[in-house]
């Protein structure tokens, strides 16, 4: 029984080792995020693959806070592989983040937990 995927633990372990991994249906070839024990829709097996880290901002909101706290952004990013995830874009004034903007994934650590944020993609 323990041959089943343990989605959260495995995802987090990959991040801790510096890899942003997402899942792909072995039969369907379709990529998925967030991590699951079975493929959504089909219920079939999934494998881990490293995400390219490339994505585009799908939507953005800037959350205001009582000064002196700074506002911060929350975005949805469409990964190049297809899935969408919530994240934030660092390294840019939140007011300058635009829908459609190309971004690149980075793994950061806060409160002893690694997670994925994005930065504006390097100009080609």
């Amino acid at each position: 029984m323990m041959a089943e995927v343990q989605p959260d633990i495995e995802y987090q372990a990959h991040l801790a080792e510096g890899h942003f991994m997402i899942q792909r249906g072995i039969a369907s070839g379709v990529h998925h995020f967030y991590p699951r024990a079975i493929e959504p829709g089909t219920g079939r097996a999934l494998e881990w693959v490293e995400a390219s880290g490339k994505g585009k901002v799908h939507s953005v909101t800037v959350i205001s806070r009582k000064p002196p706290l700074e506002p911060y952004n929350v975005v949805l990013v469409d990964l190049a592989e297809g899935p969408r995830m919530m994240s934030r874009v660092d390294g840019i004034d939140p007011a300058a983040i635009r829908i459609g903007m190309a971004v690149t994934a980075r793994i950061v650590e806060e409160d002893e937990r690694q997670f994925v944020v994005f930065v504006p993609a390097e100009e080609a």
Partner: protein
Amino acid sequence: MSAKDLRGRTAFVGAATFGCGEAPGYTAIELAAEAGRRAVDDAGLKLSDIDGLFICLPNDFLSGLTIAEYFGIHPKMTNNSRTGGSAFLTHAEWAMLALDAGLIDYALICYGSNQRTGAGKLVSAQAPSPFEFPYRPNNPVASYALAASRHMHQYGTTSEQLASVAVAARQWANLNPEAFKQGSLSVEDVLATRLVADPLHVADCCLVTDGAAAVVLTRADRAKDARKTPVSLLGAASATWHTEIAQLADLTITAARESGERAFAQAGLTPKDIDVVELYDAFTINTILFLEDLGFCPKGEGGRFVSSGAIGPGGSLPVNTNGGGLSFCHPGMYGLFTLVEAIRQLRGEAGERQIAGAKLALAHGNGGTLSSQATCILGVPETV
């Protein structure tokens, strides 16, 4: 196999609200119980007549059990399904089926919250997603803001158009003595309020109030004996597409499209037939999305539709005639209030805000972050 014909087989025979706005000192259960008692009384029934209970209280996972005990009744059916603010319209769908099947005879749907004056902190019913919380979205507003920002990006919807939803709601609230927020409100006023999560301002967001509501349903044959003219349930349908906003395929199209389509099909009606519309307006963007998804205007046209003055008093399509969650009340979950207002309009009980000759009404509930949608279509007896 096609769906059983449930059109007009059941009817609302009682409706009530209690403690809308501020109700200091009361617990959520007390508010819900009083609204429930009033709705049962409105129907000319006794508490002991109720054999189906549909409840969802903010601070109680097992609230159906609590209300059964509170009323001293032994219901055959107890349902506390929680799908957010759409739950109550889904409860109506359930009740319709259970009543028609003869499983129960009288269904009570009720809700109450003391979230404004209550000493306890606001209850978060939803488990935080490990894939959202690192980014600190101030949910629910952040999720709705992300949808609004996509709608603006794709269709050119403007902040002024969003604001016009809040303005129409306030105009209706000014005609409703029960409404919590009254007074003049202009588009400029809305835009001058603080941004909470771009593009949504404070005045784009629903109120935080106390309040309770309840409705009673029974089979059409029994409804004839009710104290007041029954309001028939012509169609009801639900749909769930996601939980987290990142998982909604197109942030400008909600499952209301699906629940609306099935509810209209069951009722044998189209949006053109509807006289009055009650939508769950947790945020101004909701009204725009649901008007589009329910077919009252084409996709992407919602912003222009609402800014034309169409949805306010005197407009071509009366929407949220009680003032909605934006100006009437919003005690954590607003869904049931859409049903109560639709029933009051069809009974001709809406006073200054009454829509003359209203025969058909649509009530729509929304849960989670645009996640779960449910639509009910109601009609006066002659529409059955």
